[in-house]
């Protein structure tokens, strides 16, 4: 069974759940079985927020990601909490603007993306999450213009259609860095 298990984690307010929803929709428009499960509860206030996203060729069993193939850590508590859970051979993407330490694991591929700085430099300060999402798709060989466009249209409501281009641009910055 071919499945990709992803864990997206950071502070509440960084767009963690949105990023997960985008990735789930990307899978859906490409014909995959998908699930999205947020952490919910007191930890969402100021602590870590996370969501589990699974893309699979088969119906998704448990929606809980305990051994991610891909971990996105957008703050230090998330990296501390989930680094050891990543599957050997997996991928860790960190926002290196906010996380100063290096990843300790040597059996995973690590991408250090200064996403928060890139977002700020490019006058899109709220889109560090989508810069990371671009990098994630690139790193998993799944960045296609059609897929990204279709998924963005699903997660961004028609009322906010003016945000489509800047989200796409953020993802391109992530993919190219």
């Amino acid at each position, binding site marked *: 069974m071919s499945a990709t298990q992803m864990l997206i984690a950071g502070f509440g307010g960084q767009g963690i759940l949105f990023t997960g929803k985008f990735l789930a929709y990307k899978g859906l428009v490409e014909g995959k079985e998908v699930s999205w*499960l947020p952490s919910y509860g007191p930890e969402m206030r100021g602590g870590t927020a996370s969501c589990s996203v699974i893309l699979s060729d088969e119906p998704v069993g*448990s929606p809980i990601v305990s051994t991610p193939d891909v971990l996105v850590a957008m703050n230090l508590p998330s990296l501390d909490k989930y680094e050891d859970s990543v599957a050997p051979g997996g991928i860790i993407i960190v926002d290196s603007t906010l996380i100063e330490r290096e990843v300790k694991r040597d059996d995973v591929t690590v991408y250090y993306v200064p996403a928060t700085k890139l977002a700020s430099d490019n006058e899109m300060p709220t889109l560090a999450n989508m810069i990371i999402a671009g990098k994630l798709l690139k790193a998993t060989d799944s960045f296609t213009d059609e897929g990204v466009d279709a998924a963005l249209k699903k997660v961004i409501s028609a009322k906010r259609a003016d945000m489509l281009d800047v989200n796409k641009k953020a993802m391109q910055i992530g993919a190219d860095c």
Partner: protein
Amino acid sequence: MADKVLMKGNEAIAEAAIIAGCRHYFGYPITPQTEIAAYMAKRMPKIGGTFLQAESEIAAINMVYGVSSTGKRVMTSSSSPGISLKGEGLSYLAGADLPALVINVQRGGPGLGGIQPSQSDYFQATKGGAHGDFRMIVLAPSSVQEMADMTVKGFDLADKYRMTAMVLADGTMGQMMEPVSLDYEIGAPVEKPWATTGTKMERPHNIVNSLFLVPDELEKSNFERFERYKYIEENECMYEEYMMDDAEICVTAFGIAARVSKNAINAAREMGIKVGLIRPITLWPFPVAPYRKAADKVKEIISVELSMGQMIEDVKLASECKVPVTLCNRVGGMIPSPEQVLDAIKNAANGGAK
């Protein structure tokens, strides 16, 4: 595929209820089901329906009683402690033979408990839920699609049998998003000649009531109700069997536990262990038939639950204790991992229960 949208389980329930013709929702917020109320608050005013946040769960269930008396489709939703508060109303609905849909997105207990997922209201849901002899039809969805499907089905069954149907979900099912398709053909509303809609001076008064002070009349109403329950037990059981054809070990679970179990079963099959799953979809009526069949060919049944072992009692009854029935569980908001279930399966394969 293209017309599927991603929805949270809670949102899927709310939208499915509206599609099923529900125009009256009464509730009181509680994690992890508040999205149902939030969705209703947004949608109901736009379609001429009623969304009302009651002053308490007790008030909400009694508003359900009132609307149901008029023959309209009506629902309320809550999570474990809130369902306990609704208990009195559930019993009154049963005593008055009123249809209603009640959603319980369970969280850990007892008491105020926690806010993470649980299945520890199984006894409460399937054995009545309050005082008096009565049943509720209990539907246990295992995907966001089924959250919607069981909502529509629940309204139909409630109307058909004049009783409460409960969708028994858990925090995971309520919070997770999956693709869902909401294409339903909704039949014509069930005739409700008993409803209190005004006589227009053309018929005798209809009275909706659960008070019977004459014992033999109360006994008769109980007997009649249980005749209906018997018919439901014979005709409305729903379950899924997964890889049970050649199974030597049977896992049984509902809701989120069934999904975790499927992961473990797939892993065990790759190791050559012949294991399958019985997933009850109706928890009452409990589907006895697949367990009877399994009890004659498997060497152990493993009940995977997010409780201290509640469904396991019905599994033992259904399998007539012909084979050992063991429990694999987590509680308090914890969820068994596929690895934990796989270990239980391997243990059974290696000689099994002591």
